[in-house]
């Protein structure tokens, strides 16, 4: 890697005139959740300008995918948002299914919902843990969240063979069927997660320090959130009722009863709270899906995994990933590799409003505002 480092102030030096101080935060700052850098201009402790700098983890995922077969891109999607590989798989296979017109057996749809909601559970739990770590609660909440995540990852390993890089879904269904006893184990862990959430909330939600640090901090107004394309819990915390599971009803989401939690003020606390409430709704979906799980085929037997050649055309498919709207835009020219492969990364686009949210707050608040957006650099930089 001989790339010259990006210059410190890409927009010029004039911004540090007077008593302003320019701080380069990251790329190895522990609170930036990866290799993310912000050029923060400070007046005392107050932020007056913030420029995010990307690209430290850029590997041109899209170009790699345009040289690989449709099947060969699935393991690469695992590595986008490396916490939620299952939902990444899902968004990609959904787009390929749209592009090639492939139907999915019912059992596979249910399994997708189950693993997708489990992914949302541990993503939100970990995010809450990380956010608290950023506020100074070093370790404890994060370790409790990781303990629960570990149990779900064990389930994923039993199912797909790998804990994090699952590579589990295929266009037309899923790769393999559930092992013996898996649904029962999943139901048990789901029930355990419920009591974990009660504990977690007792530990955190009423905590005075959490409230003092997060209420009124990093407010994202509703209009700005919509205009800037913020999606996921961050958008709903600003009071916009937009959940793709409800809007698109992709897969079989119209069969489940669940509510969409909304925030009022759009501050860091609302973003935290929306995620906690979403976990409870995810548990409801999980229980319904485990209860209704039908028997049957796991993958459409007619589908060609190798050498899939969709008709020339294009398709955009999107799902509600734990981070927001994860979309894949594919163009086929009739050949075995996609002509154009584009990931719509929710993490990157949610960062558009980082500066607006941080403006006027202290540098310590920048850390928790960034933490409440929930980014993963594997997806931001691709």
């Amino acid at each position, binding site marked *: *890697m*001989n*790339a*010259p*480092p*990006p*210059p410190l102030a*890409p*927009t010029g030096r004039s911004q540090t005139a007077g008593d302003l101080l320019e701080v380069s935060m990251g790329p190895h700052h522990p609170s930036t959740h990866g290799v993310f850098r912000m050029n923060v201009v400070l007046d005392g402790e107050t932020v007056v300008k913030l420029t995010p700098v*990307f*690209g430290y983890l*850029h590997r*041109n995922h*899209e*170009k790699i995918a345009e040289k690989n077969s449709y099947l060969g891109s699935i393991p690469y999607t695992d590595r986008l948002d490396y916490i939620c590989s299952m939902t990444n798989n899902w968004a990609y296979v959904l787009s390929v299914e*749209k*592009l*090639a*017109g492939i139907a999915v057996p019912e059992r596979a749809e249910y399994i997708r919902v189950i693993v997708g909601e489990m992914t949302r559970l541990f993503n939100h739990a970990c995010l809450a843990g990380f956010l608290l770590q950023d506020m100074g609660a070093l370790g404890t909440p994060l370790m409790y969240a990781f303990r629960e995540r570990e149990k779900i990852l064990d389930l994923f390993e039993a199912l797909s063979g790998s804990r994090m890089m699952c590579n589990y879904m295929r266009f037309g269904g899923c790769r393999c069927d559930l092992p013996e006893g898996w649904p029962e184990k999943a139901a048990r862990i789901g029930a355990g997660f419920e009591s974990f959430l009660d504990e977690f909330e007792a530990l955190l939600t009423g905590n005075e320090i959490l409230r003092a640090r997060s209420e009124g901090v990093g407010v994202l107004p509703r209009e*700005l959130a*919509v*205009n*800037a*394309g*913020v*999606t996921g819990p961050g958008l709903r915390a600003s009071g*916009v009722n*937009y959940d793709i599971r409800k*809007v698109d009803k992709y897969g079989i989401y119209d069969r489940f009863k669940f509510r969409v939690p909304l925030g009022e003020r759009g501050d860091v606390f609302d973003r935290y709270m929306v995620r906690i409430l979403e976990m409870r709704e995810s548990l409801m979906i999980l229980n319904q899906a485990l209860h209704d799980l039908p028997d049957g085929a796991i993958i459409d037997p007619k589908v060609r995994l190798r050498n899939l050649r*969709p*008709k*020339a*055309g*294009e*398709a*955009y*498919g*999107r799902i509600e990933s734990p981070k927001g*709207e994860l*979309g894949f*835009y594919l*163009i*086929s020219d009739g050949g075995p590799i996609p002509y*154009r492969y*584009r990931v*719509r990364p929710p993490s*990157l*686009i949610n*960062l*558009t*409003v980082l500066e607006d949210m941080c403006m006027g707050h202290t540098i310590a608040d920048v850390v928790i505002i960034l933490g409440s957006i929930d980014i993963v650099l594997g997806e931001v*930089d*691709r």
Partner: protein
Amino acid sequence: MQTLEQIKDRIAAALPGARLAVIANASPAGQPSLLLDHEHALEAARFLRDAPELRFDYASNATGVDWPERTVKERVKVKKMIDGVEKETEELAERKIPGCLEAVYHLYSMELGHGPLIIRLRTGNRTDRVTLPSLTPVWRSCEFQEREIFDLFGIVFEGHPDLRRILMWDGFEDHPMRKDYAPAASGEAKA
């Protein structure tokens, strides 16, 4: 949601002189798109966002596509004089499709819950006429995505507030997502 034809007619009525074209999509996804011209793109985008029954307030995805110049071979019927008699024969003719860069936007409406509406903009060619109007003034969500298109495809967006490279470093010269991109021999990326 209204059909794409209806939306096209509405834009044409609101913006006289706008050159619009519907681009069909053969895939089962059935997502046809609307090609806008440069002069009216920004106005059309504002119209799509603000018209009360359209309200495409959310630009979800913005991306580039590279279409290098290609030649298509097709059978053409030609009239020829053979031995003094005019005859119709089939001949293989080559047709050149000029290359261009394309920006594709996927629009949804959060207020009304419909979408996607796909709009496209095309540059004149792939070398010197690569300027397109930026839609960031209408939808802020395009800010980073247009920067990414500029970085990886080399489309210059006019009216973008902060058009710099986003993923590649500042001294980098080529545009890696173009189809003819060749990694430099000394560069870090090897095929």
